[in-house]
């Protein structure tokens, strides 16, 4: 095939000046250029994302301890069956659900309320608030952990001091060492980092709503709650779905650093979640098979959730004007 084109262009070139020959060559190459430009990004993503993904699927059927010298033993579905019986697993799944739901007030409820309540604020003050509210988002998770550990320290932290002196709390709260409190603390820190970002997203969506809708609704004697319920929330629904998807898929992943730095999953697995469990199995007990099997389950589960959200978004996209 390429031989044909080459000879054709050659015979052509004899009749025409040299530029034609160059052109024919470039025509032939044109089909290749997009792939050449894509090559670095695609190769890297294939090699560092999709190759390991395939390997994780493969490793989930083997028993292995991460040592290059030790052999991998094929165990079939054994790792998956094992997962069902591991006590930490059910705790981790339960906590994953806890983080996912616990972050919703920070990613959806409060931001939506604030965005609606503070719509139409003066431009200059809006920029100041934006700059302040957004700050947690750019802070490094490790730095965030370090600061909150100090603020929430049981005896010397400013939070417990304030609770005791101002609100008359008797016993200081052991925010990270008490199993009952620890998961709330981690959820709070995860949400704290997120709340400003979500508020800005919803504020931006509010700004984009055509205010004539409100006027029209008012003409029809709708009251403020009716306007929120029947005008604003439907118009915000694409944004709400988008943030709901982000927060469902990533709440547990975002809490990883705080768990790792502040509680290491403890006390007694009280704060561990599925992501942290993958980590513990992989790099502390070196049970690569378990970790990979859990990773496969996690990947497929969250993939299904994402597909669900995307289908829902498509269904509701007529709001998008």
């Amino acid at each position, binding site marked *: 095939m390429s031989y044909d084109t080459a000879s054709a262009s050659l015979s052509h070139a004899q009749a025409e000046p040299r530029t034609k020959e160059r052109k024919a060559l470039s025509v032939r190459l044109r089909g290749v250029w*997009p792939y050449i430009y894509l090559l670095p990004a695609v190769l890297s993503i294939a090699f560092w994302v999709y190759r390991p993904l395939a390997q994780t699927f493969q490793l989930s059927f083997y028993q292995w301890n991460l040592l290059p010298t030790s052999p991998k033993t094929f165990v079939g579905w054994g790792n998956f069956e094992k997962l069902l019986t591991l006590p930490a697993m059910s705790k981790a799944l339960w906590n994953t659900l806890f983080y996912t739901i616990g972050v919703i007030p920070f990613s959806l409820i409060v931001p939506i309320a604030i965005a609606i309540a503070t719509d139409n604020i003066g431009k200059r003050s809006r920029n100041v608030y934006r700059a302040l509210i957004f700050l947690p988002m750019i*802070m490094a998770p490790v730095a965030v952990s370090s*600061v909150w550990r100090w603020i929430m320290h049981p005896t010397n932290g400013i939070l417990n001091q304030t609770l005791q002196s101002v609100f008359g709390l008797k016993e200081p709260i052991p925010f990270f060492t008490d199993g009952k409190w620890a998961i709330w603390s981690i959820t709070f820190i995860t949400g704290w980092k997120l709340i400003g970002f979500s508020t800005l997203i919803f504020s931006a969506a509010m700004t984009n709503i055509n205010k004539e809708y409100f006027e029209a609704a008012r003409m029809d004697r709708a009251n403020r709650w009716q306007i929120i319920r029947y005008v604003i929330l439907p118009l915000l629904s694409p944004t709400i779905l988008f943030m709901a998807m982000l927060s469902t898929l990533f709440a547990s992943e975002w809490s990883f650093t705080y768990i790792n730095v502040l509680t290491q999953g403890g006390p007694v697995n009280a704060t561990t979640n599925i992501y942290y469990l993958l980590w513990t199995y992989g790099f502390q007990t070196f049970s690569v098979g378990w970790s990979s099997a859990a990773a496969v389950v996690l990947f497929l589960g969250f993939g299904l959730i994402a597909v669900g959200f995307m289908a829902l978004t498509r269904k509701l996209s007529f709001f998008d004007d």
Partner: protein
Amino acid sequence: MGNGTRGFRAAPAGKHAVLIALGFLAVFPLYWMINTSFKPDTEVFSSSLLPRHWTFDNYRTAWNSVPMARMLTNSLAVALLQTGTQLFTSILAAFAFTRWTFKGSSLIYGLIGLTWLVPFQVIMIPNYVMISSFGWRDSLMGLVVPNIASAFAVLQLFNTFKSFPRALIEAARLDGASDWKVLWRTIFPNLRSAIASIGILLFITAWNDYFWPLLVTTKMEHSTIQKGLQMFMSSEMNLWGPLMAATTIASLPVLVIYLILQRQIIDSFVKGGLR
């Protein structure tokens, strides 16, 4: 009713109260970090809102008890290299998607876009094994090479490139410019500020990254400042002054960038979503 069209919800004072409360919640930890970092030992446990005697002792202690300069240099090198390579690979990719219609383009684009569904923890073991087999643990290569492409950057840049007028590209092509020249002489200079703001996001992400350095580095001298901060935290349990000083140092570059460019940073974050 007269005010109906513009002021919608709460009274202006109420709006400001809500936003001030949220702003306070966001800024207080940062303020408390800096406040503590300048307090002498005797004042660290007091709840005073400003140090009575300002001191740099905490910074000195933090700087001397861990190889701080070394870790900051590592972080800077990683963040700059990563940002540079990610921008380069994604500019090329975004250009390919904008310039040509070709077989498989939507499939390739889809596969790049879908990577956000693959969490780091799902692929960490094979990548760790790969880096180990290359002998790249505790090295700059090991930290940077897995991150030379960013799906986020490709998608963002493609959105930017799409808005570039096709007529200008065609005109440059008619003048005999090659595609390479069109990209770097026509498109790049015109979109420089958009590309820069994506670059800033990439830099912040790289500087703040913790997972990957946690995995591939073991010694403080080879690790980035984030990992170093975590190690400092677990070894010096209750030295709160020095710890807050170290935390401030680790956050400083990003805070400075934010102070100067917050408008662009917020805009591109809000536009691009997370990651």
